[in-house]
Structures are given as C-alpha cells and as structure tokens.
C-alpha cells in the first residue's frame, strides 16, 4: 500500500514529499492541515485515529486547537474527496480510512 513513503489506497495517492494528493488521477488541492489529517489516517489504514490525537498532532495548537476545528477540516476534506466516502467516522473515537469499501 505504501512505497517510499507514498500511500495508495482506493484510488487515493498521497506523496508526503511533494505533499500532493491525487484521487483517481485528479489532483486534490488540500491545505497543509488537511494533508496532514489525510496522511495520518491513510498511514494507519483500517485503524481509527482518535480526535484528540489529531487535534494535538495535526492542528496548530497556537491557533486552532479544538475538536470543532478538526470537524470543520474533516468536512472540507470530505467535500474535496467527493463521493468516495474515504473518511469514515468511528463512533466514540475519531476517524479512519478503510482499505475496502
């Protein structure tokens, strides 16, 4: 699934070096925070990542440290990723990307 740091899952390609995201060949314009969220979820495939982990590790603690901000980023990211419904909500925990639909 991941080669040289790159992650490929369900048509999603993430390159951590160039910080480029492609879905089914189309470039997705993700912000820095959105990219980090996506990368964190994609590298832990099928494993949920807790909201508080994402808040402390991905969000800038000085500017936007709340779980509400995280929800906003997630919903924007979902909109950008379209109908694929890659990012799943895990009850009581946070979010995950499943390797299969």
């Amino acid at each position: 699934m991941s080669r040289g740091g790159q992650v490929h899952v369900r048509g999603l390609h993430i390159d951590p070096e160039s910080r480029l995201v492609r879905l089914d060949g189309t470039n997705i314009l993700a912000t820095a925070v959105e990219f980090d969220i996506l990368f964190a979820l994609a590298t832990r495939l099928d494993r949920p990542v807790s909201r508080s982990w994402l808040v402390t590790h991905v969000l800038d603690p000085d500017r936007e440290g709340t779980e509400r901000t995280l929800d906003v980023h997630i919903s924007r990211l979902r909109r950008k990723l379209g109908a694929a419904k890659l990012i799943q909500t895990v009850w009581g925990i946070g979010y995950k990307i499943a390797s299969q639909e």
Partner: protein
Amino acid sequence: MKLRARLLLTAIGVAVPVWLVLLGGFRIVRERRLDAALTAAASAAFAGSRCSVGVTKSITVKWDWGSPLFKSLSSHQFLIIGLDSTGRSDSGTARISAAMITTVKLDGVGVRTYGTTRQVAVAITYDSACGFTLAESAVNDTTGAPPPLLLWPVLVAVLGVLAGLGPIVRRARLLTEGIRRWQIDSGAPIPIDRGSDELGKLARAYHSSVQTLMKREEALKEFIEDTTHDLATPLTVLRGHLWGLKKDFESPRLESAAEEVDFIVSVVANLPLKAKLSVGFVSRSDIDVNQIMSRVHDRFYALAAARNLRFEAAWPAQAVKVHADPTCLEQAINNLVENAIRHHEPPGHIALVLDASSGAFSIRVEDDGPGIGEADLQRVLVRGEGGRAGGSGLGLAIVDQVAVAHGWQFSIRAGDSGGLVAELKGIVG
C-alpha cells in the same frame, strides 16, 4: 532521632562532664604552680639586692604544664606595683631612702586572693642606719592566661566521629530507600549490604525475610493462577453452551443463567489480580500500552460482534510506555471493555481509546448503552458493592484499585450519548 544527632548528643553528654572535671583539676594545678612561680620570682627579685623604694618592677614568670600539649599557655607577666616601707616607730614619720639601707633580708612570701585579683606579698627586712625596717611588696597577677582549652581536641574528635559516620548513615539510607521502593513496587531490587557489622547483618536479615515473603507470595499467586486457569476452561465452555441455548430457546431462565455464568467468569478472571492487589504487591516494569490495547481489541472484537456491538479501538502510532504492572493494566482494560459489552443493550458501539500527550496517558472506554444512574455511579466503585445489582462484579472496583496502586486516576461518568465513559489517567514513562 537521627543517628548523627543521637551520637552528637551522646558525645556532648560524655565530653562536657569530663571536660569540666579536667578543667577543675587543671585549675588547681595551675594555681599551685602559679603560686610557686610567683613566690620564686618575687624572692629572686628582692633577695640579695638593695631595695629600691617606690620603684615599679616588671617581672615575667614562665612556667608550663609539663605537657607539650599546653606549653603555649606558659607565659605570664606580673608587675611589682610598688615597694612601701614603713618606720618601725608608731608615729610612722620615718621614711628611709635607698641610700640608708645596708642589707635586705627576705622574711617570707605569701599569696593572697582578693576576688579575682591574686596578689603575692613579699615581706622584707631592711637593715639601715635607722635600725631595721619591715617592708612589704605586693605583686599583682594581672594577666592570668585562661585555663587550658581541652575542649577543642574533644570537638575535633566528635566532628571526626560524625564524619566517620557518613558511610554508615549512607548505608542505612540506601537500605531504607530500597525497602520503600520495594513496598511500592515489588519488582524493585533491595540493595544488598555486604558489611560485616551489625548494620550489614540487619540489612541481610531484612533481605532474606523479603525473599521469604516474595517466595510465599509467588506460591500464593501460582496457586490462584492455577485454580483460576482450571476454572476458566470449563466456565468458558459452559458460557458458550448457555449463550448457544439462549439463542435457540427464548427463555428468561436461560438468559438469567447465562448472565450468572458471565458474572462468575468475570469474578474468576479477576481473582488473581484481586489477590495481588489485596497483598499490595504490584511489580512494575516498562510496558508498551499499545500492545495491550491491540490484544484487548483482538480479544473482545469477536465477542462484541456476536452481541451485535461494534467495538473499535484506537491508539497512537508511537509506542506509549508506562511504568506499570502489565497484568494489572491489561486486566483493568479487559474489565472496562467487558463491563461495557455486558451492560450494553445492543445494537450499539463501544470505543476504546488510548491517548498520550505531554507526559500523560488516558485510556478511555465509552459506550452508547443504557449507562448507569447517578446514584449507582458512586456505588459501583466500592468493592463488593458493585455486586450483581450494579452488575459489575469485581470489575470496576478492581480497575479502581489498580489505579490507586499505580497512582493513576479512575473515573466513570455519563457520556454525551447517554452511555458510560470510564477513564483511566496516569503518567507515561
């Protein structure tokens, strides 16, 4: 009282009386010698010489204690303040001049003490043209040196002993600290003292008693574990059968029986830990909580799914290291998850989350089941109270004890979705 303080007091208690006695003795000796020296000096000053009337003479008396230790205290200075001569006749008009004196004869020397002043009186007979005259001279002891300070060698000795005590005190402290650490964490080694003195023997006696204690504890633990293990297998089979029967036949009795067996399984599973906690032996080591999380997830995933519950677990990508008793922690998490599964009214969710940030960790089990009433929230943590009414068996009470034994915090509260949130918080590393 501390060892050093006790010794210091003992030393002072012995040294002060001894010092006082010696001081008294030396004072007597000093006075005698001083008197002898003064007398000799005065005699030497007047005997065989012509008397100089009204002349002040300064003499130095040297003397020592006869011991090299106090030689430095041997120099004293005395002053002859005057020499008065009085005429023999009662009218007292006759005064003699030095020129008139032909011979001087020393009659006697005596020492007098006026308060703090010591005076040496010298009586002399002058033969002169006027006949003979009695004269008296007073020599004041103005500069008596202080008595020998025997205190400072004693002080040096006491300080030396106190300094020499250092290693002994250190050993005692090392042993005390070792025992304290061991009380908190039975895995911590107790330092072995190889000294051949009483302290070393005490340390070794303690060490061997600790070994015996640990052996006994080990035997007890083994017994409980064996018994639990023997019970676990048939109980699991029984539970499987009962849940199977419950699916096949709708019967409230079967349901009740299945729940009772569940309860017994939980009690039996917690027995070793209960024994361990009641003895107070918690052996800590550095463990990776992620691995425990993964095991607990694998253990309960199928069981939860069979009861139509979605059980998910999350832990950070990096290892979360905690200094804890591995069995305690794993059983505590087991209990939390099992409790959530058992009291859920499916369908629903159970979430197990490990978070670690800024030196602290949190293990949280949340469900969207019916939850517990406010009154019962307080009750379930009390040992034995949980019972069957609360339905937690030993489970949550044991989690609480594990938390206390490790210095963690355990809390249960109502979740946002009405279920129960149980959280274990502590320090990483």
